[in-house]
């Protein structure tokens, strides 16, 4: 199949109609930072490209009393500079800032990063730690699904050809709650994550962990929650001993998951420093 048409959509309705008409012969393109490469490498060969980069309907960051919703076509530059997402959600900003280079951040979108489903996708661990939901639309209607269920594997997400991800939504951090992020790239810009980690933490007045959600990137076939590690922390004070126990558990998990891979030894060693730094920063941010 060779590319016949590129539709530059101006409304979401148009997009839904086109997807309905062309189905699996179509491919959505937003920033194009992944799609263009896939086209060139002939990994995909759609008949129709539906360009949604000008779709202002799904380019927004909204704040309600208890929720934040980010439109799928919002770029990483917009996320990094958002006044809504700073402070308690610093982890989300940091992960957006760590994507590629300024040029890539100006083009690439949060929806694209999720749907491309790279194991190293930068925005995925923070969204998993926020327990975010994905909003999906098609001509037939709307549905919501937890990001954790939406991500199925390397390059695989739970979406039908006639559907589009329109937004991502999550609960706002409450008092003494915060989101932190850490990434190990091999250089300071244009670095694909070798390890990324995100931590959503809720601390009480005694520094005891009420809630914690940990998600890592680039250490599995997709971004993943670390529920076994979370269990170590819940109900305990964040002392040096507890943190070290958590790190040990994290290493065990990675060791099992990465067994047989050449990067296993490096990643199980290096995760300690990245995770600890992110955890301590998050804990501090909870108190502010």
């Amino acid at each position, binding site marked *: 199949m060779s590319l016949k048409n590129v539709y530059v959509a101006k409304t979401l309705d148009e997009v839904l109609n086109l997807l309905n008409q062309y189905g699996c012969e179509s491919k959505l393109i937003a920033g194009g930072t992944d799609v263009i490469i896939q086209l060139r490498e002939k990994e995909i060969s759609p008949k129709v490209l539906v360009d949604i980069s000008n779709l202002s309907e799904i380019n927004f960051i909204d704040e309600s009393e208890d929720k934040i919703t980010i439109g799928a076509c919002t770029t990483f530059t917009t996320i990094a500079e958002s006044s809504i997402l700073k402070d308690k959600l610093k982890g989300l900003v940091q992960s957006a800032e760590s994507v590629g*280079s300024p040029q890539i951040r100006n083009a690439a979108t949060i929806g694209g990063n999720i749907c491309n489903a790279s194991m190293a996708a930068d925005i995925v661990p923070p969204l998993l730690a926020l327990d975010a939901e994905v909003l999906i639309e098609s001509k037939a209607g709307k549905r919501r699904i937890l990001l954790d269920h939406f991500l199925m594997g390397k390059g695989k997400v739970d979406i039908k050809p006639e559907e589009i991800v329109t937004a991502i939504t999550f609960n706002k951090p409450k008092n003494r709650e915060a989101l932190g992020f850490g990434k*190990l790239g*091999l*250089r*300071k*810009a244009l*670095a694909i994550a070798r390890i990324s980690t995100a931590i959503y933490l809720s601390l009480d007045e005694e520094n005891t962990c009420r809630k914690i959600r940990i998600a890592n990137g680039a250490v599995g076939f997709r971004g993943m929650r670390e529920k076994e590690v979370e269990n170590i922390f819940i109900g305990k004070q964040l002392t040096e001993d507890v943190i070290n126990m958590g790190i040990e558990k994290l290493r065990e998990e990675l060791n099992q998951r990465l067994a047989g891979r050449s990067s296993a030894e*490096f990643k199980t*060693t*290096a995760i300690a420093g990245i995770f600890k730094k992110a955890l301590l920063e998050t804990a501090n941010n909870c108190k502010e």
Partner: protein
Amino acid sequence: MKKKGVGIGSTFYGTGYGNGFPDVSRAKAVLKEDGKVAVHVGATEVGQGSKTIMSQMAAEVMSIPLNDIIFICEDTKNMPDSGTAAASRQTYNTGNAIKLACEDLRKKVIENAFKELKLNSSVGLTLKNGEIYLKTLPSKNISLKELALCLLKNKELPLIGEGSFTAQTIEMDEETGQGAPYWPYTFNVYGVIVEVDTETGLIDIIKAVCAQDVGKAINPEMIEGQMDGGFAMGLGYSIYEDLGLKEGKMKNKNFTNYLIPTALDVPELEKFIIEDPESTGPFGAKGIGEPVMLGVAPAVLNAIYDAVGVRITQVPVTPDRLLRALKEERRE
């Protein structure tokens, strides 16, 4: 834990083909009808700045403004062979050839001037600021432009100066290892301060200093540019650039995996140009193209040793290699 270390890497490097291999550069300098001088030379500009500094050398010998030099290179129909832009040899070798060609043209210009000025001989005639004049009676003068017009009328143009320079190197004795395989040598030293993260294996270069022997700086700003570029390449070689060779095959065959430093990875480099003119060099100059990157890796590896006490003997020092080395050190 983050640990700081300081390292120095010092190198000396013989420029040119060396070891007795014929290393020849040729050049032509031609007086044009408008009094400008065309330099024909087979030196290739690969971004190192050869066009600029070689035009400067020609302008200096001919004593005319840089704008009056027409530099013609990279066109084999119009230029003699000056060898490759390799072995850091163009400044020294081709610089010498251009200097010789321009000196030859300068001599011919003066010989023709004394005829035009109807003097007894060329003794005491000199060329300065585009004018040929008698030192003892400066009113006896003719400009290069006027001279070119006279020669044109007499059908004596073009006036051509030629130069050829062969570097002096002697093949090493295979038995004894004795000889003089290179001339000249260029000296260089780098100093770096690194910060090593012992938990992730990441290496951060905090500060870097380079002192480069250049013989004579023909264009100091361009030398600083060469130093900045050489440092960035040396840094990539030290800690980033990994072909990932496995049984002769490259694993990292694109720039997603074969990492070169970005602007954020390269710290400011403090630069010192050391001038000690080389008697056989054009105006004392020597080549620095390769030398500016050689000292970086030894300095970085020494700094890592200073920081964490581990001798790394393989480049690039990627985080996984460094962590493995630290682990082995702890076991011993």
